[in-house]
């Protein structure tokens, strides 16, 4: 059995990648590697077949139910903090189970469980995290506001948008906890097409992501804890497209970070994806992109058409604020050349491209294999280039 950290299911990239995303939460004590491995063993016993989406969702749900039950037992006995640990685990396992399920009632009900346990777990284990509703068009976007530690006055703040398959319950920990320790606030937000916003509110993604970007700025600017002159926009994975777009078109942001660049030519990417799908070698489920972009019949051809709007050409050049592009040299989802292209196009006088190679670690997609190293790097760069206001 090949069963290592980054390639849990060998050549089965779809399952390995999805498992890595969940394992990436290990440094924050919110998932248990022993449990994840027990799931993995069952999945391998069931054939390690990426098209067997039932196997995937059944095994992750079974473990999620198991730990949720342990959490509820602990809660009944008044062992609240212990219950909190189990609820967090249940949340991530349900969320992982949901990932491969075709959009519909079953998917929604699994997500509802993920959200239920996330909410219970966060309330117990992270009582200082504030669940907020960010006004957006005629509705709101759900987010966690994580306050800087030990800061009295207004503090620098980072707005974090997710990628295609992630959620604020991940970024509020892997960014929020680290940034708080550095004295920064974090707004970890499920934007259009992301997490709870897509799944519960049915709000799909959009190419003009500056609209939610502006909404997020307006929101944080209304909070007394926030230093409006030091608000940074950051996105990870697919959010690596959103962040430069927002930085270019809402220049109130003092800086930006693409924590993983996105494909420069998104249209060409989807054309290729269509080909790969026929061969079954995609990391992402075939429905994911049409679903995230709100195509009613999940017709991939329409997604390919729509994707022509998703471009940073002529936009990235307008970015003026300090901007950091991070990428993993061994990223199997989006190759590092894409990061170089984005970096080259950015208009900022102060811009930085940081590629993590295999020898230093964090060489995978969005540094998921060593998320701490990636986020630490970002936090230091922000402190030195944006928040220190040297020469500004």
């Amino acid at each position, binding site marked *: 059995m090949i069963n290592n950290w*980054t*390639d849990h299911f060998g050549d089965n990239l779809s399952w390995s990648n999805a498992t890595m995303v969940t394992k990436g939460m290990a*440094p924050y004590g919110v998932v248990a590697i022993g449990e994840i491995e027990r799931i993995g063993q069952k999945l391998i016993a069931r054939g390690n077949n990426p098209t067997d989406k039932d196997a995937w969702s059944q095994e992750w749900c079974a473990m999620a139910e198991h730990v949720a039950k342990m959490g509820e037992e602990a809660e009944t006995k008044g062992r609240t903090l212990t219950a909190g640990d189990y609820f967090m685990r249940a949340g991530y396992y349900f969320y992982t189970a949901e990932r491969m399920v075709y959009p519909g009632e079953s998917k929604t009900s699994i997500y509802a469980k993920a959200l239920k346990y996330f909410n219970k777990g966060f309330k117990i284990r992270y009582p200082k995290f504030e669940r907020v509703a960010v006004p957006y068009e005629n509705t709101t976007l759900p987010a966690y506001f994580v306050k800087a530690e030990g800061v009295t006055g207004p503090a620098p703040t980072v707005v974090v948008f997710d990628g295609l398959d992630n959620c604020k319950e991940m970024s509020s920990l892997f960014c929020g906890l680290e940034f708080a320790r550095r004295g920064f606030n974090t707004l970890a937000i499920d934007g259009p097409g992301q997490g709870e916003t897509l799944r519960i509110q049915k709000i799909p993604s959009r190419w003009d992501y500056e609209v939610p970007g502006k909404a997020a700025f307006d929101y944080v600017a209304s909070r007394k804890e926030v230093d409006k002159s030091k608000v940074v926009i950051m996105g990870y994975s697919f959010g690596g497209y959103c962040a430069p777009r927002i930085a270019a078109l809402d220049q109130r942001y003092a800086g930006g970070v693409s924590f993983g660049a996105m494909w420069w030519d998104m249209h060409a990417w989807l054309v290729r994806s269509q080909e790969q799908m026929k061969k079954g070698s995609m990391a992402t489920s075939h429905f994911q992109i049409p679903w995230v972009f709100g195509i009613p019949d999940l017709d991939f051809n329409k997604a390919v058409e729509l994707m022509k709007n998703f471009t940073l050409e002529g936009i990235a050049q307008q970015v003026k604020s300090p901007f950091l592009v991070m990428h993993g040299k061994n990223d199997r989802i989006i190759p590092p050349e894409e990061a170089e292209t984005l970096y080259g196009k950015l208009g900022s006088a102060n811009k930085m491209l940081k590629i993590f190679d*295999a020898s230093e*670690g964090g060489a995978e997609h969005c540094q998921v294999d060593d998320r701490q190293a990636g986020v630490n790097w970002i936090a230091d760069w922000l402190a030195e280039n944006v928040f220190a206001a040297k020469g500004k």
Partner: protein
Amino acid sequence: MSEHKCGNWIEHFPGNAKWSNAIQIVKGMAPWGAVSLREIDEVAARMASRANESDHETVWKEEWAAMARTVAAEADKADAEGRKITAGDFYMRAGNYYYSAERMIPPGEERLGYYKEAIRCYHAAVARLYPNVEHVDVPYQGKAMAAFFMKAPGVTASAPTVVVVNGMDNCKEMSVIFAGLEFAKRGFHTLAVDGPGQGETLRLRGIHGRYDYELAGAAAFDYLATRPEVDTKRIAIMGYSFGGYYAARIASFEKRYAAGVSLSAAYWDMYNWQLQAQKNRKAGKPGHANPFQWRWVMGAKDENDELEIAKKFSLAAVAGNIECPYLVTHGQTDKVIKAEEAPKLFEAIGSKNKQLKIFTAEEGGAEHAHVDDRQKGVAFAADWLVANMK
């Protein structure tokens, strides 16, 4: 990345109990962000590629030391650049890797060199990441034991406190994190002690282990009694792994402790355990432990002395004296100390209020001292203390 064939979380190197057990201890620190599983995986891949070499102890040392040096260099660089928190994270990893590298080296200058690197990194990490942790000296027999005192944040009045002693190969730099942080959430302070025969106290201060650990237990209590933060009516003694013996011994004699926890029991019959270990060594059957470990930790002169010392490590006549609430936990599939040892200790304990908790494979935490899911074991102990240390 790496394409090595390996085992699983619990048995990383199938058929190699010594490496598997030792690497699990390092992996067990993952939930606190104190190690990087990617780096561990890389070390393991390199070791696996050298598994055909005859000297496994050297392979172990070299690969961990190589990773430790790389990460320590990153830490030093970050620190020099003023990136203190990033440096702290790297120092913590490097500390754990150096400590792991040191594990299989026979006592002597080389081993001490690695330990000094470990302690440099560990202490640099604690200073940068955990400002609420103090490195303290606990007066003991005219010398001092090295310890960390972690204050529960936001506690103003005097608070309950847990004294944690290690096992044969662990150290306060692990327990202050995996137990201290969780206890702090419950409003408990933690004194993580390198007792006689443990960590810094053995390596840098030359103080060996002893059967009558109540002397160390009393010293820890006396120390805590001098601190205004501590509620002396509510101090618990806890030991993990081999410390499961020490905690029970202390609770038998030092009645000022309000509760006790053996976070896994040790062997009930230590004499036979050591006798068997000697026989296995002669038969060329390596176990989990280093062949030199017992002699070194206890300061034994020779084989005969090893056995004489082991004879004194018996709770048979003393565990009945324990009166405080007492918890014994164990993992059902513990490969280092079999689960059947735990009921022996549990039965012998004199307390009216006592509990035996065996973690099954189904619920997780079933390995030695719950190292496979340490959070689970420690959370259980913490909840039990909240409910039973009144």
